[in-house]
């Protein structure tokens, strides 16, 4: 078995004062062993919520109302979404099997404890190492992620570290339990490009050294192209396309993926070529359109078809899945406006 994690038809609602927000509306993602899986989409598409649901660390008003999150663990399959968020069961998996790093290296550490104490806290809580052994392990991890002079830096407070160093410390903490899966939610968005390059490099190197998988969540197609082996594109709470990275960039099928790729200026774009903007804006999550959620912005919208039923994610070629009516056998695929 090469599967590590399978998210199947996941549905998450947020209960707010204004009503129910259907943040994730049946998302399916499969993450294989020892690969980097990119999850990409615009703000509000539900990519962070999907990722957080794996560890059951959703906000209090969020509710998983359907679907499964199957984690393959030593020959067994555990449905993480059914575990109680505060229970002992799910804690067994956090940090040791699956751990997470966040966008804001500034706010994800507590400012009143040294980074060493925070890393050691995680180690002591989840393993039976002694205080001394935990400290040695923490110093070791800091060294592995490239923090200079780790024996001294371990006793520093987060504010004494720069953004890039703090993100390295975060990675050290997340990886100190030797997890099988690292979930990285926009890990480089707050960093400058030269520091971003350092962190991307570090994550790739750690993935190979530790033999884990990484699920990277980002809105930056460049970061995806640089890091990911496999990509899932999300739009309004659903995965609309899933493919190996080269396939997705060179042969995108879903109109949203196509439009997204065309709307980004690249280093090679010519000035004379106008950027292809996607018309309109992402609809409000309170009133998601019937049928395919993308049809109001789609250039290949077919009245009477796209606004009727919502297409499912279907495998078109090996490992290439897409959720668009155009590619479903029973409908003609001549496209057109």
């Amino acid at each position, binding site marked *: 078995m090469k599967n590590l994690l399978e998210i199947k038809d996941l549905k998450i609602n947020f209960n707010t004062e204004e009503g129910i927000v259907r943040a994730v509306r049946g998302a399916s993602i499969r993450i294989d062993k020892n690969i980097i899986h990119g999850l990409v989409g615009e703000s509000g598409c539900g990519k962070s919520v999907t990722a957080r649901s794996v560890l059951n660390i959703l906000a209090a008003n969020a509710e998983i109302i359907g679907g499964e999150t199957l984690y393959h663990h030593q020959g067994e399959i555990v449905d993480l979404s059914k575990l109680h968020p505060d229970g002992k069961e799910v804690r067994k998996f956090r940090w040791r099997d699956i751990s997470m790093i966040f966008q804001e290296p500034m706010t994800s550490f507590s400012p009143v404890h040294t980074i060493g104490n925070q890393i050691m806290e995680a180690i002591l809580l989840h393993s039976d190492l002694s205080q001394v052994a935990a400290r040695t392990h923490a110093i070791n991890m800091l060294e592995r992620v490239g923090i200079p002079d780790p024996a001294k830096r371990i006793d520093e407070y987060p504010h004494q570290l720069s953004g890039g160093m703090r993100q390295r410390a975060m990675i050290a903490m997340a990886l100190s339990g030797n997890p099988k899966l690292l979930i990285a939610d926009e890990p480089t968005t707050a960093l400058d490009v030269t520091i971003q390059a350092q962190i991307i490099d570090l994550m790739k190197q750690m993935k190979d050294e530790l033999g884990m998988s990484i699920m990277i969540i980002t809105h930056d197609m460049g970061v*995806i192209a640089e890091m990911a082996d496999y990509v899932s594109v999300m739009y309004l709470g659903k995965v609309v396309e899933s493919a190996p990275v080269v396939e997705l960039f060179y042969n995108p099928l879903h109109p949203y993926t196509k439009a997204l790729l065309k709307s980004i*200026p690249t280093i090679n774009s010519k000035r004379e070529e106008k950027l292809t*903007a996607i018309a309109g804006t992402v609809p409000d999550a309170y009133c998601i359109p019937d049928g395919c959620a993308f049809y109001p912005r789609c250039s290949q919208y077919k009245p009477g078809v796209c606004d009727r039923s919502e297409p499912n994610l279907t495998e078109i070629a090996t490992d290439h899945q897409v959720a668009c009516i155009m590619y479903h056998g029973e409908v003609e695929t001549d496209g057109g406006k």
Partner: protein
Amino acid sequence: MEENKLLEVRNLKKFFPINRGFFNRKVGEVKAVNGVDFSIYQGETLGLVGESGCGKTTLGRAILRAVEPTSGQVLFRTGEGKVVDVTKAEDRQLKKIRKDMQLIFQDPYSSLNPRMTVKDLVGEPLLVNKIARGKGLQQKIIELIEQVDLRPEYMDRYPHAFSGGQRQRIGIARVLSLNPRFIVCDEAVSALDVSIQAQIINLLQELQQKYKLTYLFIAHDLSLVKYLCDRIIVMYLGKIVEIADSEQLFTQTRHPYTEALLSAVPRVDPKRKSSKIILKGEVPSPINPPAGCYFHPRCNYVQEKCRREEPLFRNVGQEGEEHYVSCHWAEQLGPKEVM
């Protein structure tokens, strides 16, 4: 100042004092902009890039005198063809110049007053500058709103009813109301999602053609800047390290920092083999910049001279081309292609 120049910046500096202690004594200075020289030509789009803290925003504001520059000159050619030093202009004159120079902000959420309707927001500059009143005002507001592809029916709504991209359009309508000739776009699309980013960029380009606008486009997204700009300025720690034609900056890179910066940009192509130059360490503090060349602690080509002497900012372009760089070894290292 040559006829084709709209603006010329000469040795501009902006230092922010650091005050500490009981008597609030000045204990140091943040050298945000530390002596920069460049020109902006009529009708061009000039990009300004650099990492956070390099002083690009401060420079943009100092040019408009939205922050008071510490020293230096900003020469601006007014609509009547007169050349004025913005840094020395008196209140009355400054008010006049400011109609010509405008600023688009990064954050479309905090730059619009939430208690004003779109109509009031767009109409405000017209009233303040006594450009339109009464019936004419209403007509002008509708024109401006249509100009940025918003629907005039929505003009009695408040900013919260609009999405980020629409708010940025409202901001642009405000700026356009004064018929400016020069606009500083400070990270004008950074807060927007990519699909919306493209809409706003296309709008900015259309407006530029229509009204012959000159842009100073401040951004950290290098792919975007390359796509949009005629020339690019690269800043590092309050100083300009390189200015070149945007194509040339990529194909004939002269400064080691530019080389590393450009190579670090993630390319939207999974087949491209990564040839990133990973820089050591991080940007030093602008309070106490290193001696000699500011970039030397992180530079891959560093030599003894770099630690002592500050390099001269000079033109190394061939045959009348302008390509400014501040590196001791620009001639010896030769141009590099970063792709």
